[in-house]
């Protein structure tokens, strides 16, 4: 039987913040990493666990002026079933459908994917390509962190030990396109070998603008491919440009 540290189940955020401020505490939402990876492989067992499953403030999917906002506790199943996500962020729906089996999609959460910060986290390149903002909070207040500043080194994030991830905001620009591709060893229920998210705005004769190329599973963290973005920025999507971008991406990935 895995370790069974004490667990608190607060109903409100402020109670969770108090617990986090009081000492080393490990949040648990869907539990797919905590029980699955951490405890089985004898990673440091925390003093206390903090169950987020009863905190309704971390739930919900809403379309706001600033973009599509998802609560940290939104599960992959909820993303797949959300009419708002399907309409405004189909790439995230696609990514959610590739994560684990139904058993995992029913439990695993977007906030958990971010906090776990695996370089193979399937939603993370989408956050990078979409210029997502991650809202975190604690007793010291709330702050927004850009996805590109969030993943610092292997499984290290900008989240402080006394903070929780509250929500993720995806800005929705006019004419913005976003695509997702994952390559694993098989079509379903496989850890990714490489994940790519590509975003751009097509302005006709001027070509592509605001190009974002983000990759997972190729470095210690999910990364943006800056050199490849520069190749595509302001260029027309011709076969020659595509070849040059692919070559640049290949060289960049080798360097990592």
């Amino acid at each position, binding site marked *: *039987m*895995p*370790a*069974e*540290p*004490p*667990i608190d*189940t607060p109903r409100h955020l402020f109670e969770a913040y108090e617990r986090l401020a009081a000492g080393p505490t490990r949040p*648990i939402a*869907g*539990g*797919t990493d905590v*029980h*699955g*990876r951490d405890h*089985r492989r004898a990673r440091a067992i925390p003093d206390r*666990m903090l*169950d987020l*499953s009863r905190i309704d403030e971390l739930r919900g999917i809403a379309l706001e002026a600033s973009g599509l906002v998802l609560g940290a506790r939104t599960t992959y*199943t909820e993303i797949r079933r959300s009419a708002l996500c399907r309409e405004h962020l189909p790439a995230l729906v696609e990514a959610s459908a590739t994560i*684990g*089996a*139904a*058993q*995992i999609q*029913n*439990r695993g959460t977007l906030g958990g994917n971010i906090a776990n910060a695996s370089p193979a986290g399937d939603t993370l390149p989408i956050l990078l390509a979409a210029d997502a903002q991650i809202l975190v909070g604690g007793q010291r207040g709330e702050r927004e962190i850009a996805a590109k500043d969030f993943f610092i080194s292997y499984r290290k994030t900008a989240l402080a030990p006394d903070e929780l991830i509250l929500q993720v905001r995806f800005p929705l620009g006019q004419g913005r396109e976003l695509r997702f591709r994952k390559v694993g060893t*098989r*079509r*379903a*229920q496989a850890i990714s070998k490489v994940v790519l998210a590509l975003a751009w705005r097509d302005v006709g004769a001027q070509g592509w603008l605001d190009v974002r190329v983000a990759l997972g599973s190729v470095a210690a963290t999910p990364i943006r491919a800056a050199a490849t973005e520069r190749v595509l920025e302001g260029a027309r999507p011709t076969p020659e440009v595509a070849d040059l971008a692919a070559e640049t991406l290949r060289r960049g990935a080798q360097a990592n």
Partner: protein
Amino acid sequence: VSAYRFLVNGAPAEVNVPGMRRLLDVLREDLGLTGTKEGCGEGECGACSVLLDGQVVDACLVPIAQVEGRIVRTVEGLSLAARERGSLDTLQEAFLEHGAAQCGICTPGMLMAARAYLDAGGGPTTARFAKRSPATCAAAPATRRSSTRLPPSRPRPTDARQ
């Protein structure tokens, strides 16, 4: 250690255990419901699948603190409705008919995952079902046949087992 109350297969259950104890261990060791099996114990294989508020989950990944006040259904409860008619669940019937078991350790999980899939309105296509249960043992083809050559919901003649 705290007291946690929930429903298992329609009956109220109460256990006094650490909140991080896995639902899997509570079912098997504290409640004696050993129909749910432990496979990998890390959420990869699905052998310990049960229904939590109707959704299929891996019982090895659920801390009991998150089960307080909720509804759990295990393989022991799969045939509850059918038992009154003296039969098994249609899925169990189909698994028997097709011989869909080799060693059998994953069979309860297969049954629960398939039940959740069909209850959610999933159509009987082998490709979609295979995605849910990636087992690759010799019984896999029979398992897929059993789970897909079925009407999508439960109603079925009660004398099926005569």
